[in-house]
């Protein structure tokens, strides 16, 4: 495709990015109107691969659903099984043992580290810093190894059960977890230097894809996306589940480092990096404070299921996943399976925030802005330009545009 396709200002083009498969249940296709280089309209389609997981769930028993729920998302899978358990526990009035609360917290925070570090690599790749991509993903291996050491699996952990957890973390395993904690506290400085001090990354992300506080509230944004715009909202603190009431943590907003909140991509990077460090500190605290005791209220699964068979009522399970608030609604009516189950993943809410972020931005900035809310990035796998030109803009092409912009900025900065 010739360069002049983008230079033409007298006409507006429509450009579609996606779909393929983001790891959430909603794959995303973005349709954008482009005037010259500027985005003038944003629309999205989520209808590509709806798997009907909630429908399947209403034909399974609660224990089976835990494992189904883990498969909603490949990255933040623990949050779905945990949110579902929380909803069921609130209906059946099950008390989770304290030790299980701590183990749930440790697992959720390990997952947050892994998700945020993975995201940092993807963001670097979108900007054309592939060495940083490899560096951050190397960092991520450590936490995946720890998760495997503790649960037996790298990704789907299968550790949550109704009323507790399935595996204990023994004293013998503590040193390995502690080592991981120290590793991430140490690498925070280096990650901070790479992402926050580098002049090229800064100029690619500063004042790009701005989401104001007002817009974040209007679009119901959640998680780091909302916090980077100054909305103080974090379910870990606001509702305090698992072991969080004992941990006394703070809400991470970008003004902690820069003293101001602009709500741009740079701020979203800061919010996530701060959370990586915070997660490591939380795990450290958990290891120190974890009490002895049972890890589940009832070990025998048939007994758990028999107990759940005659409960009736509605429950809500909420928690803070790496990307924001996860919300599960469950209705049970004296049967083996729940009568109704509604899952709401964070991207569901954050997607509306794309519209104010992308409006008026350049085509080359679309990848990093779309990535900045941390959807699963496979949705930017390919792009098609339709309309008068009827030509195809591949993912490589879009990526190259982004890389070229970075190079250009680097050249300009050198000449200064």
């Amino acid at each position, binding site marked *: 495709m010739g360069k002049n396709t983008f230079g033409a200002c007298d006409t507006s083009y429509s450009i579609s990015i996606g779909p393929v498969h983001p790891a959430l249940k909603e794959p995303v296709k973005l349709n954008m109107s482009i005037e010259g280089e500027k985005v003038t309209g944003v629309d999205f389609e989520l*209808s590509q691969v709806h798997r009907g997981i909630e429908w399947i769930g209403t034909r399974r028993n609660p224990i089976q659903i835990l494992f189904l729920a883990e498969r909603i998302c490949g990255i933040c899978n623990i949050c779905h099984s945990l949110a579902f358990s929380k909803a069921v526990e609130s209906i059946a009035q099950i008390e989770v043992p304290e030790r299980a609360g701590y183990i749930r917290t440790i697992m959720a925070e390990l997952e947050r580290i892994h998700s945020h570090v993975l995201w940092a690599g993807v963001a670097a790749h979108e900007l054309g810093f592939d060495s940083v991509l490899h560096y951050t993903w190397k960092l991520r291996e450590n936490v995946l190894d720890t998760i495997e050491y503790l649960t037996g699996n790298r990704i789907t952990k299968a550790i949550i059960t109704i009323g507790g957890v399935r595996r204990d973390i023994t004293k013998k395993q503590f040193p390995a977890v502690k080592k991981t904690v120290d590793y991430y506290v140490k690498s925070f400085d280096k990650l901070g230097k790479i992402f926050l001090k580098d002049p090229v990354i800064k100029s690619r992300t500063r004042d790009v894809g701005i989401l104001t506080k007002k817009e974040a509230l209007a679009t119901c944004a959640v998680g780091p996306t909302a916090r980077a715009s100054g909305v103080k909202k974090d379910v870990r603190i606001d509702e305090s589940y698992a072991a969080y009431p004992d941990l006394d943590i703070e809400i991470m907003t970008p003004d902690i480092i820069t003293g101001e909140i602009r709500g741009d991509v740079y701020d979203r990077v800061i919010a996530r990096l701060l959370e990586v460090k915070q997660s490591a500190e939380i795990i450290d605290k958990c290891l120190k404070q974890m009490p002895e005791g049972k890890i589940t209220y009832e070990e025998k699964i048939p007994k758990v299921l028999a107990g759940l068979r005659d409960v009736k009522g509605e429950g809500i399970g909420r928690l803070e996943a790496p990307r924001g608030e996860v919300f599960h609604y469950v209705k049970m009516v004296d049967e083996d399976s729940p009568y109704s189950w509604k899952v709401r993943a964070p991207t569901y809410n954050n997607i509306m925030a794309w519209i104010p972020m992308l409006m008026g931005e350049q085509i080359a900035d679309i990848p990093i802005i779309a990535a900045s809310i941390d959807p699963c990035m496979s949705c930017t796998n390919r792009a098609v330009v339709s309309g008068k030109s009827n030509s195809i803009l591949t993912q490589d092409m879009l990526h190259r545009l982004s890389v070229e912009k970075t190079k250009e900025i680097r050249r300009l900065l050198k000449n200064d």
Partner: protein
Amino acid sequence: MTPESVLKSFKNKFGTKVRKGMVEKIPHKMKHTNHLKRVWFEVDRTALKKAVRHLCKQYPDPHFSVCSGYDAGKNIVINYHFTVNYAHRTGEIVLTMKVNLPKKDPVVDTITGIIPGALITEREMQEMLGVKIKGIPDSRRLFLDETFPKGVFPWRNDEKGPEKLVRRTN
């Protein structure tokens, strides 16, 4: 702000249009015990929009989480889940407004005029439960593909449900 005061404020304002109010405090025992706070009530569908407006006025910037819904035989129930009082340590209250819609005339007003972020979930309710959201700015399908048959609604349990489309694999 307590869950009781939230429920009371709605009862006072809307009288008989707010029914079956319930406050739930789920104990969460750690060293520091806190309670997960839930407020549930049913609101008449004609008063939904006013109730949401009242919520925004009483408790500025409520967070709208999502709608959930199910087929309840003769009716379709939609739950509007909000949270208020966030950013206060363990102070968040989850407030659920239930709306009962008769299957013969499942129409309810849109709340996107008050909370623009509700658009996604309202579109989902339309295609999944076959309800009609009056005044919705964009009524296209969202999660269902265009090729999915018209008049079939995946979350319904009656003759409009998806049962006949399901291929049994076991």
